[in-house]
């Protein structure tokens, strides 16, 4: 993307202007999107963003500048601005020798979406629209989006690192609106992978659309969710959000170092039910995947909780340097215009041993959350919420009536301790976008069926 000689001179310029450490992050991103709504392909859009972010560190201070000008002069200007921002004085001649790090790309792409005719992308949306509407006359509205993106990145830093990655992601989602006597309800289904267009040979957009329509229709007869503490059963492949919020964010080293995590100082302690082993890891083709993080470090498997005991946090370069340890490949940024910070990749709870059907049968009363929504956490207190897109009552060991949308609230460490059974049916989850300090990155997750003995459901009916 940029010649090695140019990178060396730009890093040199950053150090000469007073930096102790410098990094050039170059990104070339193309995306193609088609949106269907109201029976029409409403817009087909595409865009390209290219630029570089330059980070210069002096002591505890990080200076940062970014530019869309990838000429040597443009990069040098940004490097000097970043160094000035880091309050460097310095001087003298500094040179950087770069060593290319060879990393296999994270996903093997069979059909590059850039080579696929837009007509074929748009056709997926029209098929999904027809399938959802065919499900019932009560489906009054359907919207959907197709998106593919290719993100090529290059990272070079003054330690001599030079690494590149080529990330391709494909996303498809459908939202159906059903209308009945009780008003309107929505159903939502999505797939997202680090794969190319071949994903549509494996996944039927019709099935996805029918499932979104089914969810909206089911909710038409939903009754208000309970209000108060209940037992919660979450099936495989949907519960990752719970761990993402209950402890994932709290295990990010930047929050831990700022003493804003309930998991601070807890390494070696029992923080969850002994059933729980939680890892953050690359999972091939999964939405959160990458070969290198946005600091050039290879993605890696990190065991965060082993049999309930906290084993480690997740690390980026800056926070690892502070502790004098290795980073863990969790330094990510939304675009070249952002500074990296500690982020999750794919978080996964290891498989359990129980038959999921037995778990439900053994639950006298509770709530079964067939599809979770997004969530949010206050890492300092550990209190977190997540939504339920499709949920049912459990009565006498059976899944019964559908419930209306609500959030659930709990405290991370308490909820982790209250997990009393894990199923043997581990499954990968749906794509998520994780927001932190104004930056959004793709994340994945996986989990088996699990039960939490006590969480508060925020409905309006008496519990």
């Amino acid at each position, binding site marked *: 993307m940029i010649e090695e000689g140019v990178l060396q001179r730009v890093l040199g310029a950053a150090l000469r202007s007073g930096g102790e450490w410098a990094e050039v992050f170059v990104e070339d991103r193309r995306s193609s999107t088609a949106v269907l709504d109201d029976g029409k392909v409403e817009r087909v859009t595409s865009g390209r963003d290219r630029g570089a972010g330059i980070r210069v560190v002096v002591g505890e*201070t990080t200076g940062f*500048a970014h530019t869309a000008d990838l000429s040597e002069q443009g990069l040098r200007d940004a490097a000097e601005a970043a160094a000035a921002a880091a309050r460097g004085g310095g001087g003298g001649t500094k040179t950087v020798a770069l060593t290319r790090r060879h990393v296999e790309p994270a996903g093997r792409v069979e059909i590059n979406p850039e080579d696929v005719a837009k007509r074929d992308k748009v056709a997926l949306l029209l098929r999904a629209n027809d399938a959802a509407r065919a499900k019932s006359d009560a489906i009054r509205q359907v919207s959907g989006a197709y998106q593919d993106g290719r993100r090529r990145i290059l990272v070079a830093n003054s330690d001599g690192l030079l690494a590149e990655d080529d990330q391709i992601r494909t996303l498809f989602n459908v939202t159906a609106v059903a209308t009945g006597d009780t008003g*309107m309800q*929505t159903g939502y289904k999505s797939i997202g992978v680090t794969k190319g267009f071949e994903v549509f040979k494996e996944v039927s957009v019709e099935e996805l659309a029918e499932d979104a329509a089914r969810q909206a229709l089911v909710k038409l007869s939903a009754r208000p969710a309970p209000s108060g503490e209940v037992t919660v059963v979450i099936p495989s492949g949907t519960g990752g959000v719970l761990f993402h919020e209950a402890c994932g964010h709290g295990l990010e080293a930047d929050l831990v170092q700022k003493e*804003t995590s309930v998991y601070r100082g807890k390494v070696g302690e029992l923080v969850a039910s002994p059933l729980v082993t939680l890892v953050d890891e690359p999972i091939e083709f999964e939405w959160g995947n990458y070969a290198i993080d946005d600091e050039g470090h290879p993605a890696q498997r990190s065991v965060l909780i082993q049999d309930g005991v906290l084993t480690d946090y997740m690390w980026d370069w800056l926070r690892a340097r502070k502790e004098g340890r290795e980073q863990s490949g969790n330094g990510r940024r939304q675009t070249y215009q952002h500074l990296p910070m500690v982020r999750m990749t794919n978080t996964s709870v290891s498989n359990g041993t129980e038959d999921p059907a037995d778990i439900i049968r053994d639950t006298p009363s509770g709530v079964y959350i067939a599809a979770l929504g997004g969530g*949010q956490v206050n890492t300092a207190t550990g209190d977190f919420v*997540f939504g339920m897109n499709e949920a049912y009552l459990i009565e006498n060991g059976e899944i019964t009536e559908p419930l209306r949308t609500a959030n659930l*609230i709990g405290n991370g460490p308490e909820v982790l301790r209250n997990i009393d059974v894990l199923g043997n049916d581990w499954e990968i989850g749906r794509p998520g976008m994780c927001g932190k300090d104004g930056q959004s990155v793709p994340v994945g997750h996986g989990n088996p069926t699990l039960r939490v003995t006590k969480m508060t459901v*925020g409905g309006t009916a008496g519990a």
Partner: protein
Amino acid sequence: MPESTTTSKPDLLDFATRVAGWANDGEQLDVYVARGRDTEVRVYKGEIEQLSTADAEGVGIRVVKDGRTGFAYAGTLDDDAVAEALADARDNAEFGTPDEFAGVASPDGVEARDIDPYDPDIESFPTDKKIELALELERMVNGADERIAGARVIAYGDEFVERAVATSLGVSNWSRRSAASVQAYVIARDGDDTQTGGGYSAGRSATTLDLERAANDAVEHAIRMLGATKPKSAKVVAVLEPSIAATFLGLVGGTLAGSAVLKGRSLFADRVGEEVAAPAITLIEDPTLPEAWGATKFDGEGLATRPVTLIDNGVLQGYLYDTYSARRAGTAPTGSGVRGGFKGTPGVGHRALRLVPGERSQEEIIKGIDDGVLVQSVSGLHSGVNPVSGDFSVGATGIRIRNGELAEPIREFTIGSTIQRMLKGITAVGNDLEWMAGSSAHITLAMSDISLAGI
């Protein structure tokens, strides 16, 4: 208005107009160009943690041909990239579904109010003083109370954006805005108990910020939560702190977008003339108010913004429209086209919602409540609020209200209802309207019959 040194109205507007002039026969173009500069400073324990500064510019081009719409953007203004974006947008348009209402804006004869939400200090205020402001804010929060253990975020940020919109049908407008803010998100500790609180101040430039206000709010919000416990489930009156009420009004505003109404996903479709809220509610969208954070002379399609009364004494008056939704609804646009920067296609949205204030202060409103909760923070808006069905359920922290007095702090609970019932159940609007950051004015609201879920 003083002419700024780095901005150049003519060149950005000329650029947009020139590109809009590239339209072929039988084709409509709309060109949105934005250029901006922003600075962000974060400090931690008396040191600069991060300082970033950046210039950004870009162009979004919409092409409408034979009723089909295509769009593409480029993150640079060089001619090659713009030509490539135009070619992409034309190509994209081939694949849209023909829609008789598709099209770009044409001049609609509405004159823009002469506002300029811009403070020239935004460009002259030196970086080292911005750093000093952030450090000062950190000192203020740390010195306020011994139970303040530190901060997760102490930040100063500002931005200056100018933008031009031109269409091949003759719209051609330029506007600019500046904004600066400081924020503090602090941690309070007492033994094993940890709580958090936030505060901020916003203005058109660094010189208009109120650091003391930001520090006091953050400290007070964190300290008063110490000792918070999980409450018992109950039906209560909820008093929303002004910032939370602003968030709620933003949700209501979303349901009043003409696009949502036309596409059958608004709670309030076909209800003009009906009573949808308590009589105390008069809701107005007015981006022509210079003091509104979202004030702007022109909307995202280049039309003049204008005041729109959405709800008058509880009765629904109408919806917000951009050019597409207005044509389709057979009405006039309300200057409500919004874009998420040059990368976004225009959609319908609000920028400056406000309620007509009531007579009483928050304190007086609380005095009249026997059993309630003052809601200080909410979480999970994206997961627990469904603007189509109206279901509303969010995580919250706050202070219990008993017999007209603030009582114990509570946490790890939710408040639930539906948007429809909440609007109808509003029992008081505060007299404390204030424009802070965001697209709705802050104001205290009280509403009855809210489900508080806890133990």
